[in-house]
């Protein structure tokens, strides 16, 4: 009940009803008062006139025969009529021979106000007077045979009209109050009928907000019943809520399934990442050969399509270095990368020439390559002793030769497109010699394509500046600084593409004349 009273709906409706009833009461009160007063006043005048004429007619003989007892008896009868304040009869001499005043005739009537003005009256006259004890009265003076026998005076008490109006108004107010109370009762019932289901819906939504949506909420069935039993807006609202709940349950179930599937995939991706990590070579162990090498790969996803590898053949004092970039990203690229790495390793083990290695690997990759994947690749074979580097660029960006004095040089491009595109692809090599003042810097396009938070590419220009700035650093130090550079440039934002870099430093003395 208290909830209803505090309900805004109830307060607003109550206020509206109060305003309506106040207006109706005020209008009705004014209308009834004025109409009733006017009508009754008119009736009192008419009644008073009739009484005056009646007494006038019946008192002729009584006055002539000097029979005041019977006259008084007649006069007394008229006093019983409602509205009659007094009756007073004068004889021809103006003496009051009968009246109805207790205990005495008021001073105002000892001389008749009408007769004072006009000594004789031919016809009935009406005036207004204020008589102590009676208030305002309609004073009627009726001559008996033109005043030759006397005069009859009747006072009609208008105060009683006000009393009547007041009593009618009180009745009106009582009736309106009863109607008001009944209206409030009806309003109460309607509000109860509206508020109860609204409260039910409100309670339902509150509980819904903490519901887990594994199944229907406890109030679902009640609300569903409400949606079918109420054919109004509340029923529609209830129906909308039950529909919402059903949709939410459906979506949340889908979401859970998706999350579960994602978790499963992530788990699998984590395994794949571990496998991919396993495919990548372990950090270079100490070797008797005079060269330094460091590399890293940062994938934009769990698994990436970039690859690097190095195969050391100590007995021949050779080292093969590989940096590649598989088209696309994610698992397909990772699988393609794994396949490429495995194929390269197997071909390198056969100690074939670089063009032959690439030709065979390309042929294998092209076979059954329905998804048209490809891999750009740098494959180099360095003679550690002499510093001679034979390499082949299969569609891969040209690496830099970073000299310790900060000079940069791009490696010349060799013939041959990315592996996996043309099964008949032919690959040529180029040869150069690295010395101890030079570091071979290999990278994939993820390095130059990484973006700042402002969506700006890092670009080859920045890379060149970095390399110039950090020229002379050993591979490990260089790549350490590069990791910081990447972190700084991306501000921790996810990478757009996989980044793979490799730095190879030969220990062959620089014989270039200084």
């Amino acid at each position, binding site marked *: 009940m208290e909830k209803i009273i505090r309900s805004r709906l109830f307060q607003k409706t109550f206020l509206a009803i109060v305003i309506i009833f106040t207006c109706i009461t005020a209008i009705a009160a004014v209308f009834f008062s004025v109409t009733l007063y006017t009508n009754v006043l008119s009736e009192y005048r008419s009644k008073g006139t009739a009484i005056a004429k009646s007494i006038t007619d019946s008192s002729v003989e009584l006055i002539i*025969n*000097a*029979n*005041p*007892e*019977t*006259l*008084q*008896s007649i006069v*007394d009868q008229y006093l019983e009529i409602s509205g009659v304040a007094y009756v007073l009869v004068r004889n021809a001499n103006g003496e009051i*021979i*009968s*009246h*109805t*005043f*207790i*205990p*005495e005739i008021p001073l105002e009537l000892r001389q008749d106000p009408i007769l004072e003005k006009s000594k004789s009256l031919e016809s009935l006259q009406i005036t207004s007077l204020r008589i102590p004890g009676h208030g305002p009265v309609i004073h009627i003076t009726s001559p008996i045979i033109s005043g030759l026998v006397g005069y009859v005076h009747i006072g009609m008490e208008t105060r009683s009209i006000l009393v009547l109006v007041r009593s009618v108004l009180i009745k009106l107010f009582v009736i309106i109050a009863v109607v008001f109370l009944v209206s409030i009762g009806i309003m109460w019932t309607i509000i109860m009928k509206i508020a109860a289901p609204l409260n039910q819906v409100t309670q339902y939504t509150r509980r819904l907000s903490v519901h887990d949506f594994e199944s229907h909420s406890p109030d679902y069935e009640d609300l569903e019943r409400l949606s079918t039993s109420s054919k109004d807006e509340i029923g529609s609202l209830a129906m909308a809520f039950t529909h919402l709940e059903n949709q939410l349950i459906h979506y949340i179930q889908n979401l859970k399934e998706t999350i579960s599937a994602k978790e499963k995939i992530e788990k699998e991706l984590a395994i794949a990442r571990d496998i991919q990590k396993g495919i990548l070579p372990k950090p270079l162990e100490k070797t008797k050969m005079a060269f330094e090498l460091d590399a890293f790969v940062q994938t934009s996803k769990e698994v990436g399509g970039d690859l690097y590898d190095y195969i050391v053949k100590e007995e021949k004092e050779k080292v093969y270095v590989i940096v590649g970039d598989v088209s696309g990203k994610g698992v397909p690229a990772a699988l393609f990368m794994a396949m490429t790495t495995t194929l390269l390793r197997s071909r390198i083990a056969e100690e074939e020439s670089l063009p032959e290695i690439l030709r065979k690997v390309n042929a294998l990759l092209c076979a059954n390559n329905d998804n048209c994947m490809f891999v750009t690749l740098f494959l180099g074979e360095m003679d550690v002793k002499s510093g001679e580097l034979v390499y082949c660029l299969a569609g891969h960006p040209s690496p830099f030769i970073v000299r310790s004095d900060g000079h940069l040089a791009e490696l010349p491009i060799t013939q041959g497109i990315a592996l996996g595109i043309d099964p008949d692809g032919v690959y040529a090599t180029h040869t150069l010699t690295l010395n101890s003042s030079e570091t071979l810097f290999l990278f994939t396009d993820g390095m130059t394509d990484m973006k700042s938070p402002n969506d700006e590419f890092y670009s080859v220009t920045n890379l060149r500046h970095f390399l110039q700035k950090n020229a002379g650093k050993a591979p490990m130090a260089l790549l350490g600084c590069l990791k910081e550079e990447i972190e700084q440039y991306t501000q921790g934002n996810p990478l757009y593409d996989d980044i793979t870099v490799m730095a190879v430093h030969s220990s062959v003395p620089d014989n270039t004349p200084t």
Partner: protein
Amino acid sequence: MVSILFSVTSLFATPPIVIGMSCATSGHAQYLGKALSQGSSVYFDYVNRHGGIYGRPIQLIIKDDGYDPIRAVQNTVWFIQNNVDLLYGFVGTPTVTRVLPLLKLYQDRPLYLFFPFTGAQPQREPPYGQFVYNLRASYQQETMGLVDHFVKLNRKRIAVFYQLDAYGRSGWNGIRKGLEKYGLDIAAEATYKRGSSFEASYMSPAKIIAASQPDAVITIGAYEACAGFIRDARDIGLDVPIANISFVNSESLLKLVLDHSQKTEKDYTLNLINSQVVPHYEDSHYPAVKEYQELMSGLHDPLYGFVSFEGFLNAKLLVHILKKAGPDFDRKTIADAVQIIQNYDLGIHSPITFSRERRQGLDRVYYMTVYQERFVEIKDWSQWKK
């Protein structure tokens, strides 16, 4: 309520003479009706015990009107419808004046009213006088007698306190006429509402009257209001003679005044005068008084007083008329029987004569005052000489 006096009438084989009496046996004026009917009944019973009227018993039907004119009219209609032989002993001016037109209406039957307990003029004058026979003197005679005495005592400023109805107006008119003879006018007048009690305040009318500095006051009212007025008038220091007339019911008035005197230890009975239309009911040198006392003594609860004595005298005269009407009495012959009454003495040394013109048996007014807490007839007025 109807009470029928028929205690011994069942012994008679002949039809009774049925008499209808409307009076107050309840309300503030009930004593009047009870006392008047008791005084009448005691005599009718006596007559019935002695063979009735030529063998016909008198059956008195008493209907209560509570001193209300409308009920009195209703009672009269009932009597007419029930074919009573005559109406008798109606009490009160406002009641009787309202009943009078009915008598005229049924003049063909005819229907006469005998000895109403009122001294008003309408039943003594045209157009209704011919249907009524009165025994008592009129209020005019009572009031004019009082005025005569007061004027003789040089008390010329006479005020009047009266009941605002036909009764009061009748007394007021008598006083007015009485004063008119001497070229005087009423010094002051004040009214009260019929049925007012002793406990009500009468200060307002007492002050109105006292303001006129009257030499005497005549009250035309019922005993409670008149006693209340006497109390309040004396309390504001108005000590002039206050006279009441016969209808006031002297015994009841005296009792109230005495009780109040006892309570306040102040004598409110001083300068009280009462006019009566019958001799003192204890004045045993009247044979009628002896007869009255003897018959009343046989009652269980006798209401001795002027009223019951008047009722007794009324009954005695009616019986005499009925006897004069002879054994073939009917409504039409009774008027002739009344005319036969010439110089008949009821036993109060006042001969009664009726004729076509004279329809009132007694004219004498008796004046009483209070002496040693009892009403005594005034022998000497000089004590009030101004």
